[in-house]
């Protein structure tokens, strides 16, 4: 391919006009060819039947078509196949766009995906008419321009740690984009929040944490196309803006890729670090004002975290309603503390051998002025999330101790303590101490129930708090045993007084073979570790018989009594022996 092709591009002047001198003609052709080769874009032209007319030198240098191969090409498709710089999928898409343009007789600017092996090159593609039945394809290499554009972002709009654009810059960009595209095209925002990043900072220190954030920035940038924006919003939050109008499925694919890439191990100064990422995704189609894009993505992110992290969610209008409900509940919950709308209900714990009540578990209820009695599962998670659990927990401790001091001395009270209360473990110990002192209840009549997640953090502050409680005489019980994932190792990290066998092993299901085996094993474990065991959630006499047959002699559940308001507790204690005659002793 050479001057010959260009010959065909000469426009024949009308017959009666004076012909230009042939030498001028040849000169013009050379000149045009040189000019086209100088354009920083790969250009080729073709006719309505897709026969190739001309291709400039950049088709070789930019798209990787060898000159000798190019000379053999007779159609657009031959040429695309010869372009080694385009991967197969991209070449197919360009071919498809060319066909669509010529068929509809309309120019196109299709967004083209970049070859996956070479995400560093960005192209702009234009298919336009050049004359009545000639077409031109122009591939503009915009890599340098994109780089310059991103270079051009001033220091004040950058995050100093990662060098990425900051929240302010992203806001400006979204405002620009949304102002011009609403209703016509789409941008997607992906909010990225790192999971377990705080632990990295806490355990390995801020310099390592910062190094992780820098790498996260680089991984995000390398996983996205150059036309996408990557920004750091602060802390461990990043945001991505995807332009063009990818289908949700394509955005989901990007999200999965990001979760994969960010979840890969980080090797930093000899430390192998594992973190994860949760993603919230929102589209400009759902919004009318630009800051709603952030808000929607944030709601979606919240849902992704709720769904168990390391996952992504798309925004859905129902999330707004839920968030609204949550905010209303939050306001009510804050009021509830001030207005003392909480009350404690008590469920007895029974020793089967002695046939006596040995204690009560205190369970908090919220008497909502409009919704009535709200069960703990409906408000404790929210209270934990917004930090109110500390105030609620302190009240529970004080109230439970004050109630229990009036019971017979052989009866103790068990109080649930949330993992969040251990965040300030020293303050928790202080509030236990105060509750005991204020009520006059001896420490050995108070039992604190914790779940194993308290111990998962392996913090020395947690262990020393547990030992400090022990020193006050308080007993420590492991709640929900068997439902977590590393129970056995947790049992050895602290000498618990009691193990509470989770109700899921108690509630009868099918032939119960596995459940029985587990109850038997936990009971045996308790005996050999010197820890008492108690089964929770015993609701029927059949379940009671099963639990007993498997060696467990301490139970709690509806079979004996539901949790009762304090007014009914004394009556229960008094009437218990009468209602439950001494059971026949088990054969030894």
């Amino acid at each position, binding site marked *: 391919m050479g001057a010959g092709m260009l010959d065909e591009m000469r426009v024949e002047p009308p017959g009666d006009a004076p012909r230009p001198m042939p030498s001028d003609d040849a000169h013009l052709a050379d000149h045009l060819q040189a000019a086209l080769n100088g354009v920083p874009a790969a250009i080729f032209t073709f006719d309505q039947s897709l026969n190739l007319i001309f291709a400039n030198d950049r088709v070789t240098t930019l798209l990787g078509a060898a000159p000798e191969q190019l000379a053999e090409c007779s159609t657009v498709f031959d040429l695309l196949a010869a372009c080694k710089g385009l991967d197969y999928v991209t070449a197919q898409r360009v071919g498809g766009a060319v066909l669509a343009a010529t068929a509809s007789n309309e120019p196109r600017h299709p967004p083209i995906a970049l070859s*996956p*092996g070479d995400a560093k090159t960005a192209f702009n593609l234009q298919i336009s008419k050049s004359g009545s039945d000639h077409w031109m394809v122009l591939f503009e290499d915009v890599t340098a321009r994109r780089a310059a554009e991103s270079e051009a972002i001033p220091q004040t709009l950058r995050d100093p740690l990662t060098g990425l654009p900051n929240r302010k810059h992203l806001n400006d960009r979204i405002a620009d984009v949304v102002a011009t595209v609403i209703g016509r095209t789409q941008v997607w925002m992906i909010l990225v929040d790192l999971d377990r990043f705080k632990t990295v900072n806490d355990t390995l220190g801020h310099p390592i944490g910062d190094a992780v954030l820098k*790498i996260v920035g*680089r*991984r995000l940038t*390398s*996983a996205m196309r150059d036309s996408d924006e990557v920004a750091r919003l602060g802390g461990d939050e990043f945001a991505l803006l995807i332009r063009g109008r990818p289908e949700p499925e394509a955005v989901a694919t990007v999200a999965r*890729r990001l979760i*994969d*890439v960010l979840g*890969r*191990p*980080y*090797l*930093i*100064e*000899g430390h*192998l670090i594992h973190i994860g990422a949760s993603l919230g995704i929102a589209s400009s189609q759902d919004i009318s004002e630009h800051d709603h894009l952030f808000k929607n993505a944030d709601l979606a992110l919240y849902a992704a975290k709720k769904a168990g992290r390391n996952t992504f969610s798309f925004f859905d209008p129902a999330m707004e309603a839920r968030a609204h409900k949550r905010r209303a509940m939050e306001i009510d919950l804050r009021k509830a503390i001030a207005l003392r709308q909480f009350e404690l209900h008590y469920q007895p714990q029974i020793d089967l051998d002695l046939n006596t009540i040995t204690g009560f578990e205190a369970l908090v209820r919220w008497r909502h002025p409009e919704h009535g009695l709200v069960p703990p599962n409906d408000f404790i998670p929210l209270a934990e999330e917004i930090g109110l659990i500390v105030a609620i927990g302190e009240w529970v401790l004080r109230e439970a101790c004050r109630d229990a001091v009036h019971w017979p001395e052989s009866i103790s009270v068990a109080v649930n303590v949330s993992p969040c209360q251990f965040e300030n473990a020293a303050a928790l110990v202080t509030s236990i101490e105060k509750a005991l002192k204020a009520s006059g209840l001896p420490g050995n009549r108070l039992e604190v129930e914790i779940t194993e997640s308290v111990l998962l953090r392996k913090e020395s502050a947690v262990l020393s708090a547990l030992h400090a409680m022990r020193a006050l005489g308080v007993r420590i019980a492991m709640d929900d045993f068997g439902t977590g994932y590393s129970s056995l190792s947790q049992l050895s990290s602290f000498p618990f007084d009691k193990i509470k066998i989770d109700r899921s092993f108690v509630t009868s299901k099918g032939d119960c073979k596995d459940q029985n085996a587990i109850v038997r094993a936990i009971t045996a474990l308790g005996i050999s570790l010197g820890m008492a065991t108690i089964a929770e959630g015993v609701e029927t006499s059949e379940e009671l018989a099963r639990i007993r047959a498997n060696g467990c002699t301490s139970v709690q559940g509806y079979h004996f009594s539901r949790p009762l308001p304090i007014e009914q507790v004394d009556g229960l204690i008094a009437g218990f022996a009468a209602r439950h005659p001494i059971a026949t002793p088990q054969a030894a």
Partner: protein
Amino acid sequence: MTLYRILYCSRSELADSPAAGAEEIRQILAKSRANNARDDITGGLFFSNQCFAQVLEGPAEKVEETFERIQCDMRHRDVTVLEAGPIATRDFPAWSMAFTGSTDASAFGQAVLSAAFSGQTQAGDKLLDILRSVVVREDEWLANEAA
């Protein structure tokens, strides 16, 4: 200067067609060897049943840099580190990146890789053994795949 070694396995995202896959591996190896020679890194790469296992050894800082570049590579996924830590001597002093591949579905390699992904502790040692015993059949393997 501390010598450092990391051993990981991952799942390939290379083209399914053996010929195209072999071509991509050829590219990875060419790039790896050039970079690794520059960075004083040695090691071995094992490919079987659409899984990779790789050992990288060299100056700690360079190993970290290289490993991070590999982490960003979308030609594989599910990277699982089996071992990482300082070493006294190199296992692959002569190889900027030794390679062995296997397509035999029942191959020993498959058993090792599946053990590695399921987190069995000896998998790392076994993989290292395989990688150490690499008699480089690379040309042979690539030629077979391409055929």
